[in-house]
């Protein structure tokens, strides 16, 4: 395998990173060749972003080495990396909105003239030259606050090329761009490649591979699956390699119960800039999964239904009656509960006891003459502890001391204390161990059997397939598929979620 070809632009060797008990990356090794565009793909949580953070010095790896241009490097921060010729542009570019474009481009190594004063003329000239080289027409004098996401990225790239750039990393650059802007970005990427520079592109849009990438590296569950020339793999191969893990045997397949009357129906739901024209319905006793990539708008749709960010368009029907979601308080009162993804920050009060958390949404009902009935509160909490099998020392235990899975159960108990008829769960098993996961699935199934309509948002495809009766797939703020779980596969969902429709897939 070893040859005498010039050393690669980037080589990672045996990169391993663990967070607590979960392994974000295990023994990842691959190379990015000089003068090529290298795509990095994988499902949500496959470890792509962690890898970028390690390479650019934002976080350190537990094990492994990084080589830049053949030399071993260990960056302590992104500035070191940039000095060595490695620059990264993130999904949400990090710039200074109050300063002008040229100031952003030159911040940190601005040209200075007499008395150590800024050489503004030179600053604008440098920036203009960078834009000319990129073929971008942006005014270096413009205030950064007014730029679009694409323009933010052009500023970041301009910033990268004014120093000696060897490798440019683009972290999902196209997710917020218009087709015209993507076209422009790709033209810039090709130009950089033709100048002999390397570009590493992290993307979810597989159709972009054919357009721009020379090589592709696939990560799955923190492990390196393979690196191939794009011309030698089909898109279907890539998808299969991305999701190729076996269905977890712990995920008991759901046997759909008897669905009842329609509990939640949304029609043409839209929120400016977030999602549009989303229509679906959920019946009592039904579990509907909602799949899609991170940032596709799944949580936003749920939060709109819950009244956190009221929809700007469309209609919501709850148990046959039309409602206008205005606030979570109102929707809870009407029987719709939403369990947020970041339950530690949004769903639970960490410093409070289990009892306080479970009874918080219903303290009003538990009060007599405005005074809290402590006995009733204790009774509700005790019952919840038993029902949801929370492993705790008692109802007075502080929530922050519980494990992730048990916290999730407390969060369940808390929202179910409001006796909703529709329950929306956002990534209910994110970050909890496999054993607790199965328990949470069991609870979800049991709740559906008692007649609740449940919408489960999850990035865990095997989970979605195992627990849902029906699956909605969201891509870029639109509902792109509504399929029976029995006929769906990870591949079909992934294809829909990455908008790779119209392509015939051969899955074994």
């Amino acid at each position, binding site marked *: 395998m070893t040859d005498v070809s010039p050393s690669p632009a980037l080589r990672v060797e045996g990169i391993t990173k663990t967070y607590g008990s979960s392994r974000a990356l295990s023994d990842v090794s691959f190379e990015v060749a000089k003068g090529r565009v290298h795509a990095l793909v994988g499902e949500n949580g496959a470890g792509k972003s962690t890898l970028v953070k390690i390479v650019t010095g934002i976080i350190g790896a537990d094990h492994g080495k990084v080589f830049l241009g053949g030399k071993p490097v260990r960056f302590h*921060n992104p500035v070191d990396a940039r000095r060595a010729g490695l620059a990264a542009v993130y999904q949400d570019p*990090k710039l200074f*909105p109050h300063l002008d474009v040229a100031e952003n481009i030159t911040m940190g190594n601005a040209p200075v003239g007499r008395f150590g004063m*800024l050489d503004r003329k030179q600053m604008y000239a440098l920036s203009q030259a960078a834009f000319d080289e990129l073929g971008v027409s942006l005014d270096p004098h413009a*205030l950064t*606050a*007014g730029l679009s*996401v694409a323009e933010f990225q052009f500023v970041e790239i301009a910033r990268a090329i004014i120093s000696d750039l060897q490798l440019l990393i683009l972290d999902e650059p196209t997710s917020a761009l218009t087709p*015209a802007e993507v076209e422009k970005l790709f033209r810039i990427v090709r130009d950089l490649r033709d100048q002999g520079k390397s570009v590493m592109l992290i993307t979810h849009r597989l159709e972009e591979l054919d357009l721009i990438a020379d090589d592709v590296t696939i990560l799955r569950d923190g492990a390196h699956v393979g690196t191939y020339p794009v011309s030698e793999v089909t898109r279907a191969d890539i998808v299969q390699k991305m999701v190729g893990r076996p269905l977890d045997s712990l995920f008991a397949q759901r046997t759909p119960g008897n669905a009842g009357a329609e509990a939640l129906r949304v029609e043409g739901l839209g929120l*400016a800039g977030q999602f549009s024209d989303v229509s679906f319905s959920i019946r009592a006793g039904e579990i509907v999964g909602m799949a899609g990539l991170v940032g596709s708008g799944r949580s936003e749709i749920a939060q709109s239904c819950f009244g956190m960010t009221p929809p700007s368009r469309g209609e919501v029907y709850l148990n046959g009656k039309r409602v206008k979601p205005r606030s979570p308080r109102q929707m809870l009162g009407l029987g719709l509960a939403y369990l947020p993804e970041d339950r530690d920050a949004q769903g639970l009060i960490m410093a409070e006891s289990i009892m306080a958390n479970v009874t918080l949404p219903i303290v009003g009902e538990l009060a007599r003459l405005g005074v809290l009935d402590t006995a009733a509160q204790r009774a509700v909490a005790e019952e919840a502890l038993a029902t949801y099998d929370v492993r705790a020392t008692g109802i007075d235990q502080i929530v922050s001391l519980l494990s992730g899975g048990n916290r999730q159960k407390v969060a369940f108990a808390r929202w179910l204390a409001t006796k909703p008829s529709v329950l929306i769960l956002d990534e209910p098993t994110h970050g909890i161990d496999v054993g607790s996961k199965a328990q949470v699935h069991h609870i979800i199934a049991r709740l559906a059997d008692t007649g609740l309509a449940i919408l489960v948002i999850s990035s865990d495809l095997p989970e979605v397939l195992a627990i849902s009766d029906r699956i909605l797939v969201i891509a870029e703020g639109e509902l792109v598929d509504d399929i029976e779980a029995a006929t769906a596969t990870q591949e079909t969902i992934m294809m829909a979620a990455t908008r790779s429709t119209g392509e015939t897939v051969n899955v074994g």
Partner: protein
Amino acid sequence: MSAENAVIAAAAPRRSFGRFALKLRVSGVVAFLVILGAIFAVLSPQFLNAQNLSAIVSNAAILSIVAAAQAVVLITRNLDVSVGSIMGFAAYLTADFAAQHQGIGPILILMPMIIGGMLGALNGLLVAYGKVSPLIATLGTMSIYRGLTYLYARGQEVTSNMLPRWMLETVDLRVGGFPVLVILAVVVVAILGAFLRFFPVGRRIYAVGSNPVASAYFGLRTERIVLLAYVICGVLCGLAGFLYAARVGTVTVILASGWELTSLAAAVVGGVSVTGGSGLVAGAALGAVVLATIDNGLVLLRVPEFWRMFIQGSAIVGAATADVIIGAQIRKSLQSRRRGTI
């Protein structure tokens, strides 16, 4: 190709809008000042005479230096509520020193600035390196610095006859018809403004407040920059304390207490954003003129003194609210533009 051009064309008005909105805050202060002046001029015939206008800017001069100092800290997304105590401490120590060394010349002016710089540095160390919330840290030092002044003074005060004559006379001088205090304030604010605008460090002060997360990615030494902002603030407060002492003649332990609120009001009214990254020291100085004008107008109209606090507080709340509303409007308009291109 045409689609590409359309994107660029759509970008043009958006850009000028962002800049316009930020400029609006400063020009808004000027407009507010003009309207305020017009109202007072109509209500009171004395308002517009030269002597009165001169009194207004004289009264505003020292506050404008403190407001500019406060602005530097605000721009870094921090806050200094100890400015009044720094002024008092620096002024009292300097005045006491001058009383005991009668022959001392204008070199004396360095003393309050050095003291102020040291007190500012302590604030900066607490906030930047100790990671104490700026409000809590400087609320604490506000009390500490004032307490130390009390301990040092032991119930005494320094009266005007104990101070060097040049000190008292210089602040009342006029140069070319302008009060020397006003000239000094303009020079200080101009130098500070130029420092922030034309030197790399100045731009970093804005950068840190504009986006602290990005600062780290850009390799800016955030802690050092915040410390510097507090030191600048302290030095200027020391200077302002000295000028104030010279102006009133009698230096007591409560000198400049309450100025933390007044300086904050002036800076915020002058368009300095409390959320960092935005505002001009010249705006803060103009804010001081606005407050002085309100004060003056209320006196002329014989409005009871007690209304001053109420109006000052309202000015802070009003200006900060306006900031939030304008900010939200800008975001909204940017978002709708963006949606338009998708």
